[in-house]
């Protein structure tokens, strides 16, 4: 990772740590590990689009976030109903 002295939400240049291992440094025998996609991901996540980090990747992030939100809100309602019913003096 890069060690940045200042943090800004827009970076015209890619932030590389001087110790980042580049794909070109790998010997040919390591090709089974795949290409190093970290520089591309760094570019993607440092885009100045104003999105918060949990939605930065767009559609898949939004879907996962909404699913989690639905489960937690739905679960809370279910929880309150279940606890209300459980607190009634009659047996179910």
């Amino acid at each position, binding site marked *: *990772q*890069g*060690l*940045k*002295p*200042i*943090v*800004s*939400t*827009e970076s015209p240049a890619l*932030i590389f*740590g001087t*110790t*980042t*291992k580049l794909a070109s440094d*790998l010997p040919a*025998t*390591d090709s089974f*590990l*795949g290409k*190093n*996609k*970290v520089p591309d*991901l*760094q570019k*993607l*996540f*440092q885009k*100045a689009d104003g999105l*918060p*980090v*949990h939605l*930065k990747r767009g559609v898949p992030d939004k879907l*996962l*976030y909404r*699913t*989690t*939100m639905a*489960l*937690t*809100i*739905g*679960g*809370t309602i*279910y*929880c309150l109903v*279940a*606890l209300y019913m*459980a607190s009634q003096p009659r047996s*179910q």
Partner: protein
Amino acid sequence: MAHQAHSFHMVDPSPWPIFGAVAALLTASGLTMWFHHHSTQLLTLGLLSMLLTTLQWWRDIVRESTFQGHHTPTVQKGLRYGMILFITSEAFFFLGFFWAFFHSSLAPTPELGGQWPPTGITPLNPLEVPLLNTAILLASGVTITWAHHSIAEANHKQATHALTLTILLGLYFTALQATEYYETPFSITDGVYGSTFFVATGFHGLHVIIGSSFLLICLLRLIKFHFTPNHHFGFEAAAWYWHFVDIIWLFLYTTIYWWGS
């Protein structure tokens, strides 16, 4: 664009903390519904939302560090303090169960036959599978140190091999312990011996599973080139946790398995 004049990380607004709190609520009330009303729906919902929240929260931390560069040395120092404090709290957690064990075993009551192990309990032979498990975890401590050195020396292939070996050893331990649980002549309901044995070793086993999962995530990140020779705190945190799990096992083995048999 405003720039900050300090080296700390001001995170983007995030929904995960409150979702995590709700997940804890659902899990806790889910346990209640399971224990008292034989219903597992709420518990399932709680565990599922806990899983989703933790995965996305930690995914975001990887994004903030590896992809956005927010983990300055100052931030990393804070993370180190945090992990150390967390592991310390876990040590106290286990201390409680060891206290319970010694409370019952140092002065066995007449109800137990005035002896430890209590009358009627045949303990496991500490020189059989438990000794093998000790060797496995000690070996995994060696392999994880090998992996760490490999990362620091930019030896990507060896680091991958060493970390994979560590995880396999962890899984081997879990599998062996599961078969041991199946084969024990006593159960958790067999008095205070059963309670102390299974609660202490059970929570340890859970921590082995948690540690193995943490290491697996590190392996995936290692394969994807997230770690650099100078900056790989995620791996170090996993390694600290793994050594902690190993040390707890050594205490369990020497006290409950060996002294207590």
